């Protein structure tokens, strides 16, 4: 049956079709394989960000397994993951959903899709200070606010050397 083949799989809710090539590319770099997933949903049972996620970790894995990757790359859920890695630790089949989510994020960034603002702000902060969250005042249980100076801590040195930024970019695999 060499000649024209009908499309094998269609999602009748969105008429989406799987993208096997993309799926292959995304999975290739990963230590775990979505194929092994048994849908036990232990990843979702223990997920820190479960309540925030429109698509739960086990669903994300299932979508990748069938090749429905496009909708994931543009999905908000991949950015809501806290990357706590609990799912990686708990998975009985060594699927590593968080790694998969990272790969999907990288694909989104590569396509220059919009990254949620809080995350780009975080990125900027890292580039500026090396910290995901800059020094902030915190309110303690006694009702008073404390900053580093209130606790006699030295000021955080702000700013990275150019070399450090380059090294960081290198590490993140971006340019």
């Amino acid at each position, binding site marked *: 049956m060499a000649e024209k083949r009908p499309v094998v*799989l*269609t*999602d*009748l809710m969105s008429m989406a079709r799987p993208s096997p090539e993309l799926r292959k590319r995304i999975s290739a770099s990963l230590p775990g394989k979505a194929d092994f997933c048994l849908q036990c949903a232990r990843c979702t049972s223990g997920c820190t960000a479960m309540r925030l996620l429109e698509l739960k970790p086990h669903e994300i894995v299932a*979508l990748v397994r069938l090749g429905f990757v496009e909708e994931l790359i543009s999905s908000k859920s991949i950015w809501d993951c806290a990357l706590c890695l609990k799912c990686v630790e708990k998975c009985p089949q060594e699927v590593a959903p968080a790694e998969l989510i990272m790969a999907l994020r990288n694909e989104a960034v590569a396509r220059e899709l919009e990254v949620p603002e809080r995350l780009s702000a975080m990125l900027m902060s890292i580039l500026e200070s090396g910290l995901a969250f800059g020094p902030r005042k915190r309110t303690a249980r006694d009702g008073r606010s404390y900053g580093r100076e209130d606790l006699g801590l030295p000021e955080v040195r702000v700013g990275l050397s150019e070399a450090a930024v380059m090294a960081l970019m290198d590490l993140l695999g971006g340019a």
Partner: protein
Amino acid sequence: MFICHCGLNIAGVVDVERVRELVRGLPCVVVCEDYPYMCSEPGQALIRERVREHALDRVVVAACSPSMHEPTFRRAIEEAGLNPYLLEMANIREQCSWVHAHEPERATEKAFELIRMAVAKAKELEPLEPKRLEVERSALIIGGGIAGITAALDLADSGLQVYLVERAPSIGGHMAMLDKTFPTLDCAACILTPKMVALAKHPNVRLLTYSEVKEVRATEGGFEVLVLRKPRFVREDACTGCGACVERCPVEVPSEFDAGLGPRKAIYIPFPQAIPKVATIDDEHCIRCGLCERVCEAGAIDFGQEAREEALKVGAIVVATGLRLLDPRSLPEYALLGDGTNIITHLQLERLLSSSGPTGGRVLRPSDGLEPRSVVFLTCVGSRDECVNPYCCRIGCSIAVKQALMVKERIGEEADVFVCFIDMRTYGRGLEEFYRRAREAGVRFIRGSPAEVEALPDGSIRLVVFDQATWKLLEIRADLLVLIAGLLPPEGLEALASAMKLPLGPDGFLSEAHPKLRPAETPIRGIFLAGACQGPKDIVETTAHASAAAMKAASMLMKGYVLVEPYTAVVEEERCRGCGRCEEVCDFGAISVEERDGRLIAHVNEALCQGCGSCAVRCPTGAVTIRHFKPRQVIAQVAAAVG
């Protein structure tokens, strides 16, 4: 009188001490003691000591069901010098403490009542001796699949004469039709055919292929079996299996061995390794053109052959009749799909995968002979369905995993292979790993079962299935759809069961004597079960079951006799008036009216009598009674209950 606590099973509900004190007050009770585990060695020692010490002449044990420990306590009193049948058991566990766990007061009362009844019956007990029956040292195996072959070889190897009856022209059964076996992917024929050859060459085995069991009659030494030898119209002793006749035959019909996917001739040898390797003429389709006769150099064709009957005498029977596939076209979902569509059963795919199959081992779809690029497997077709088979076929998931892997291997990695399942039940050793291997190979497993299947004009199949993992309604277009068909009892099992008086379960498969402790035995002495006739099994389970059946049969046959309970019917000749009603109701042909000294009197064949009591109930004069359950004994018990 001895009362068992059975740990807390009895004593946790029944106030054993109170019962003991009450029982001590009963007339004729000399001793009454209780003990935590009467069945333990110290418990039995207690019984033995008291029997000797007090010269007891009857013993009552209040404990579990007699089906558990009656033999234990009988042995105990026998060791103490008492006839073992002078024991009566009161079941105060299954029939009292277990069912009345929430009402200890009344359970205690009931325990005492049950004991009072047992004591009343014990007074009327008579010493009895078990019957010794000599048995024929030979066995009949019904069915020549892997179960029958295994059981036959085991029995023959232990030196017993074995007859194997197979209704098909060759032994081999379903296993011979398989390509590979899960989870090792051993070639099925490679591991089966050596056993087939060993069987055919065994000096203790007689193969009766193309034959059917017509009648089974219990006799003193076992069974008399009438076997119908269907005519092959080919002389087995002359045919060399050269196949010249097959080549010449002009008639083609769908081959049973290829599950209907390929043709065979009207004269045929089902498969290359068939045993016996002789041709068989299918009388239904043969047009008697005589071409085969003309080319047969051995002169083996014999159109004059007729069906004949052969009587066998055997001591044991092993039923190994296997199973059959459910025809998916009997289901409403597939009823309207005609033949020649690209929807096949797993057994048909097995033939496509097999190198001896119609495509020489290439997976080609039936409609156009092209290689499919997308293959979908559906599990539980007719299984786990309250309208069809409520039960699980047990092996379907493993078959789907195996075949999905095989299809990937044959067609190539780029083939889209899906398995739509309800639950994935790959439960055996090595099978979880096997399932993982299939996932690694890229087989897509979808949890969900399609509601409808549509055959499209281009030969492809359209399925719509809701995937519970992605919450998507998926449309799958497949070039080939493989149905993992449900498994049913074989054709004719009901008739065979009724001929042998074997009970069938609600699923139509044969029932074993005890699901845990006697899985290869039946309630009928001397009849054993091997393999899938007792419920679907994989090959591993089948051979284990078959060897168990053979062991059970051998242990009976090698000893040469069996001891049976003496609970048989007895006729009080003075009261019998020869009316013959007992004969009418006996299911076992064990009682018959015979003329003796000029008058008609019922006579019991104790070897056949099962002690069911039908005759005793039917007898209008009360001449027939059952030993150990005589009216006097039962009435004493009833009187104690109501008195």
